């Protein structure tokens, strides 16, 4: 086995009664990489993490940490560190003892424990907090103690289950930066669980997008954003419009699709449907679309429904009848005056980055 793989899952399945929480998942986490498991609530992220940790045993498949097969090995004999959503700092120990716990269990010599705990406290910028009690710390500080406790044992892999979800928005943004910076500096392999696609995009080297217990796409954040492999990934990552349409014809390296009355051309490479007449979804980012007069040729037609001012940009909601509500996003504040609520509008844009996926005709 290649020694640059820190964790490997091989066709792992886990069922709870009739629910298949994880279904035939295979995954290789590279050494030193920050890999995010991203997906909606209940898709099996925590289950997957618990299978790596050993708190759950798979019904089928194998789990490897480093070179070792650990499928049947209990958690305390596996080499991982974990940060829990509620931190789970031991309430009967001070910060120092919390961090030293793993070192004591691993029988690290006394003198070394002292220096390694101090080093870990410095890494998370809590030098001098050793004698404090967990309850005397803020949420962000507790978070950092939990991180220090997990990395001080220098495990092969660090597992984080939505560690930032208990923090308020500002602190959360700060901790994201800090977490990424610490991870890079320590160089520790990290599996991070979140249902927040923004968090996943900003932190990860690679993202595994999960739905219904299966990995839908495993790629860099950039790839997942620009080249989603299916309509689930396309709708989950980034803000995007999903517009019902029909494939009209495939000609050369372009396809033509009918969106309402409009005929739109999309590069063939961006189209995952193949037969003329197929119902499809057209995925377009809101920042690609712009408002034009309604008599413009091949514009998608609708009525301005609302302006949502968001500081850096303005979001315009357009009611487009059978096509649903379409959002566009612009930095130009003049738009609000030129296109007041209730005005008829046409939408056009450079659809070179748009995507077309097959649509179940019942949708």
């Amino acid at each position, binding site marked *: 086995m290649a020694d640059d793989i820190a964790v490997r899952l091989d066709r792992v399945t886990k069922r709870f009664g009739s629910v298949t929480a994880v279904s035939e998942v295979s995954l290789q986490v590279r050494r030193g990489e920050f890999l995010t498991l991203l997906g909606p609530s209940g898709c099996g992220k925590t289950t997957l993490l618990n299978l790596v*940790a050993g*708190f759950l045993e798979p019904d089928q498949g194998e789990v490897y940490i480093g070179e070792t097969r650990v499928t049947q090995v*209990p*958690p*305390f*004999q596996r080499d*991982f*560190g*974990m940060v*829990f959503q*509620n931190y*789970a700092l*031991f*309430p*009967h120990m001070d910060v120092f003892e919390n961090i030293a*716990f*793993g070192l004591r*269990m*691993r029988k690290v010599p006394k003198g070394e424990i002292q220096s390694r705990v101090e080093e870990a406290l410095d890494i998370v910028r809590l030098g001098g907090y050793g004698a404090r*009690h967990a*309850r005397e710390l803020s949420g962000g500080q507790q978070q950092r103690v939990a991180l220090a*406790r*997990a990395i001080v*044992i220098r495990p092969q892999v660090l*597992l984080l289950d939505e560690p930032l979800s208990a923090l308020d928005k500002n602190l959360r943004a700060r901790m994201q930066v800090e977490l990424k910076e610490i991870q890079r500096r320590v160089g520790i392999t990290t599996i991070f669980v979140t249902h927040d696609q923004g968090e996943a995009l900003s932190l990860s080297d690679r993202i595994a997008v999960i739905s219904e217990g299966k990995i839908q796409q495993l790629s860099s954040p950039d790839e997942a954003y620009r080249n989603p492999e299916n309509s689930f990934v396309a709708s989950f990552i980034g803000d995007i419009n999903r517009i019902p349409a029909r494939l009209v014809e495939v000609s050369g390296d372009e396809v033509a699709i009918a969106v309402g009355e409009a005929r739109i051309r999309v590069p063939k490479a961006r189209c995952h449907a193949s037969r003329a007449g197929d119902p499809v979804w057209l995925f377009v980012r809101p920042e690609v679309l712009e408002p034009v007069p309604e008599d413009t040729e091949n514009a998608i037609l609708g009525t301005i429904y609302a302006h949502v001012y968001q500081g850096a940009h303005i979001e315009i909601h357009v009611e487009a009848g059978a096509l649903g509500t379409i959002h566009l996003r612009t930095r130009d504040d003049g738009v609000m005056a030129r296109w007041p609520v209730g005005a008829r509008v046409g939408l056009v844009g450079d659809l070179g980055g748009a995507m077309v996926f097959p649509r179940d005709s019942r949708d």
Partner: protein
Amino acid sequence: MKRQPFFYWFTVPAVVLALAFLASMGAIIQYSFRKHIPGSLDVGPVTLENFERLAHPLYFSVYLDTLLLSLYTSVFTLVLGYPLAYVMVRARSRWIKSTVLIVSIVPLFTGEIVRTYAWLNVLGHNGFINSLLLGTGLLDRPLQMMFTPFGVTVALVHFSMPIMVVILAAAISHIDTDYEKAAASLSANPIKVFWKVTLPLSTPGIVSGFVTIFAWTLSAFATPQLIGGGKVNMVSNIVYQLGFASFNFPFAAVLSLLAVMLTIVLLLVIYASTRRLEKMSLH
């Protein structure tokens, strides 16, 4: 908000009970200062001699025995009850959970007398244990267990077990399993997880279970009366003998007062220690 008049009607039963308790406490205090007239149910003039009599070594040893029996009982109940409570809370199988629950709670629903008679059948000369030991030839003479502190303790432990298990189970079920998972993720084996995390985090339950059983055993009556058979005497038994055999109500009142004081001191200890533990933010 102005309270409706009927609201106060709900407090009536509590007030009646409180008055009844106050009246009986008043009677006990009043009796404790009156002279005992042998052979009479009436009491004599005010005196302090009942309290002086407390100095007699006999009574000192009764209190000491009572405290020791209570101590043994609470220690053994704790040591035996903890594993039961732990299994009841943490076992995966429902079947094991309910079995443990039933085994540990059922004694609560058999009366004290019935339960004590059951122990007579187990501990007596012709009882279950002796029949077994004699029958298998392990002993040639029956073991004396009735009328011994050992026998009384065994029965008291059984009597106290349901309360202990319920208190401990409540405390253990409050411990978030993430703490145990965190310890396991830090390489602690299951035994270490128990000693370093689960047990320390269940101290509030251990303290209140221990003190509750201690206070509860201090006032035990039927068990030492029947199983101790006059050879093992706890405070209640002496109070009973003085009151109903010699009709010495004044001295019986003094002994009862002292027992009440001991219980109050214990309750203060519970209060103080739970405050301390709350400060440690264990719960």
